[in-house]
């Protein structure tokens, strides 16, 4: 505080001892007491400040999230001043930090509210909350206390789709199909007269008895659309100039398709070579095909978190994961890179009984050659340049 402070105190101390002057000693007590008491007070008071942060930790794109911060002084000592600095990420409406300065009385609580807006999908860190305080005289210096951050997940954009045509060879599902080879004996469509060659197991004996002639059951063909979405987020495989837009578009397409498949009560999985900040390594992220809204939410959370980066090529992921997929699963390949190696991998997958649909996102070089090759191998193909191209499946 002052360069003369210690010499001043020592001088006073010696004067007090030599002169035996009470008042000098009182002055010493006053100063040293002020410093000691100030330091003790500020440190103890800051340690007694507890904090609570409440907010909905998941939000859809465009949704507003109200954050409530509550600080509570649990001590009987007041906190003279308390500077709160809540670090906030960009992309949530507020830039930089949420900052306030308050004074907290003994046992007092103070609540703050601020709103965030999920403007971009992502996995955001809310905080840490840094608390700064100090003493009345400024002798203790600024004290700091940090409280850990929480996380907000903003789901990616979901475009509602109505009529996606995806091939499947999985029989006995819940989706109607046109090929009679996928007839489902649990879905009776009607009856007709027996013709020679019909299996006796198809004969409806009750109806035959009632009608007085042989009748056989007609079954509705159905398929199960088990879908695995392969999402390529390897930056090296995207066009450098448009990789940000293209990867975001790819994530939107993946989210929309997953939503549609779950809406059809079918199983869907997500396999991506993107980087998950929660995992902290470059290992590919795999969510195997499952049914239900819970699985959709897991997929959306993963899609919210995933980041593009320099990771493993998609074809490596395909080769590794394809053996874990059941026969007849439909692979949706969301990738801009349609090279020789990928086709080779996909052809092997097709031979293993999987259906393939290629969904190149963003600008793709040699698109016509790639399309011809896909037709040659019998892969589905649909290029998506922008979100508007998804309108094809919205009609």
């Amino acid at each position, binding site marked *: 505080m002052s360069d003369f402070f210690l010499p*001043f105190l020592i001088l006073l101390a010696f004067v007090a001892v030599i002169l035996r002057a009470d008042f000098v000693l009182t*002055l010493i007590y006053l100063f040293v007491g002020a410093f*000691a008491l100030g330091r003790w007070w500020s440190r103890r008071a800051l340690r007694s400040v507890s904090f609570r942060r409440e907010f909905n930790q998941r939000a859809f794109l465009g949704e507003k999230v109200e954050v409530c911060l509550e600080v509570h002084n649990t001590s009987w000592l007041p906190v*003279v001043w308390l500077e709160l600095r809540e670090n906030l990420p960009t992309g949530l409406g507020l830039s930089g930090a949420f900052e306030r300065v308050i004074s907290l009385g003994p046992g007092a609580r103070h609540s703050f509210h601020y709103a965030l807006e999920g403007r971009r999908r992502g996995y955001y860190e809310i905080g840490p909350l840094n608390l700064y305080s100090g003493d009345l005289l400024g002798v203790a210096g600024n004290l700091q206390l940090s409280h850990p951050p929480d996380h907000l997940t903003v789901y990616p954009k979901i475009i509602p789709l109505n009529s996606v045509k995806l091939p499947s060879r999985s029989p006995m599902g819940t989706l109607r199909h046109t090929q009679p080879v996928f007839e489902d004996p649990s879905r009776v469509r009607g009856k007709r007269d027996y013709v020679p060659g019909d299996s006796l197991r198809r004969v409806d004996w009750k109806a035959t008895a009632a009608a007085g002639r042989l009748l056989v059951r007609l079954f509705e063909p159905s398929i199960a659309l088990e879908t695995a979405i392969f999402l390529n987020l390897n930056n090296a495989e995207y066009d450098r100039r448009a990789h940000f837009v293209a990867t975001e578009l790819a994530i939107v397409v993946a989210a929309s398709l997953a939503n549609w498949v779950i809406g059809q009560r079918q199983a869907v999985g997500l396999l991506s070579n993107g980087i998950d900040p929660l995992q902290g390594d470059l290992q590919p992220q795999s969510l195997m095909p499952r049914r239900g809204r819970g699985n959709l939410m897991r997929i959306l959370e993963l899609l919210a978190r995933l980041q593009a980066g320099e990771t493993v090529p998609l074809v490596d992921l395909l080769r590794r994961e394809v053996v874990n997929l059941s026969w007849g699963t439909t692979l949706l390949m969301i990738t801009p890179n349609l090279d020789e190696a990928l086709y080779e991998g996909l052809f092997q997958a097709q031979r293993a009984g999987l259906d393939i649909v290629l969904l190149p996102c963003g600008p793709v070089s040699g698109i016509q050659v790639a399309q011809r090759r896909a037709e040659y191998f019998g892969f589905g193909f649909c290029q998506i340049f922008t979100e508007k191209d998804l309108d094809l499946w919205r009609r």
Partner: protein
Amino acid sequence: MTENLPSLFRRNERLTSLANHLVVALMLACALGVLVAMGEYLLPPWKGGYLVGFCFLIVIESMVTYRQARQLDSFSPELLMFRAAELVVILILFKLLLYFINGVSQLWIDIPLWRVNFLEYFFTYGYLAGVVVIFLAWSVTGYFADYLFELEGDERLLIQERESWLYQVRPAARRSLVNLILLIGGVIAFLMGFLALEQRRLGVPVPELQRGLAYLLGYFALSLVLLSLTQFAVLRVHWSLERIPVSPNLAARWLAYSLGFLLALGGLVILLPTQYSVGLLDILSSLFGMLLALLNLLAFLITLPFILIISLLARLFGKPSPVTPLTIKPAQPPALLNAGGASWLEWLKSLAFWLVFIGVIVYAVYYYLQQHSELRERLRHFPLFAALATLWEGLWGWLRGVNQNLVAAVQAGLRRLRPGEPASATDQSRRFVSLRRLSPRQRVVFFYMALVRRGGEHGLPRQPAQTPYEYSRALQDHLPGVESDISSMTDEFMEARYSQHEITAPRASLVQSYWERIKRALRAALKQ
């Protein structure tokens, strides 16, 4: 979320500025009160009590006009005129005040005399002495106002600072202000010390001393309030520049807490002893005597059973006891100055005084060294200081160890008293274990558990979910140089703990050597 600078700045401004000005005025009035008391003692017929009140008003006026004067150019004729007019008005007001005190009739007597010799009859000695004091107050106020303005700033200045990114060094201004406060305080404390000496010399109470002491204590108490307010001013400007919204009632609360703090401090200071009748050396010799008496008593109690046994054995053989029990009288503390009943009370008072006094000195030095790390580093090069520092660190470490052991022992005792509560794993590990009684397998486990415990004490605790191998990797990251020892020790532990393989004594000794090296590395890491 962000507000504009002026609105942020204006919050709390009026109250803090008013409080700052008022406190400075009161402080300077107190300081002048000491001067007046001293003057009254030195010039017995002169009475200058009225000067304190008048100077208080002068300081207020000077601080108020300071901001107006700042708007004029330095050394400009306008500024000189402004200041000259201000001084003339003050001097005239002071003259009128003197007439008011001495009686207005004196004015009618003096007016004709001014025509005869204006300088002689207008500037009387009493008037001139007062003018000197007033001029002193007026000048010192300028310094205070300057520092306060630098600390508080104003809207225009803050906007300039924010736009230009050239910020004032406010803590430096505050340091200068503190220096000024200490300088004035030192001078008036010295004057009071002089009066106290006079009182001791004369042996009769000096009334001026009592009045001066009241002013002196007032000055220092107010200086603490001013320090608190200036700290607030520094923070307030910082928050304004950072555009951080501040609670509107912060200034009022700050002021209230400052007063509360001062009251609490006052209470504490009143309770602390300020007198002693027994000197420091006498206290030390008394304490030493008590310690010796305690040791004598202990020795007596230890030897008593042996003496009794020997005397009983001697009786069995019908012979007189060869050993006559010694009656060791505990040493008495040395006689005190007054041997009466009140001497112990005096002794205790003096002990409390010296304890508090030495504590204060030690704390002040410790705090100073904490604040000046460069000085601390420089002092470490001196062998004496280095030896003292090592001694202190050793003593402190020993005290901490004793404290921890005591706490652990008390907690363990309490746990034992509570039936049904199982002892924790920590207690088990802290129990005294004789290595010689352990089998080689148990010794290996013991050394590994010691590693885990010591690692935890050095900030590398093993997490509940960590396997020994995971913990080993974590330790290796923090303890370079002993990676192979940690790895080998973990392997040995795994084998000893989870296999039926035979663990031989040489292997246990090998693990002990690993542990010794790791222990040294842990200590070295702690010192760094």
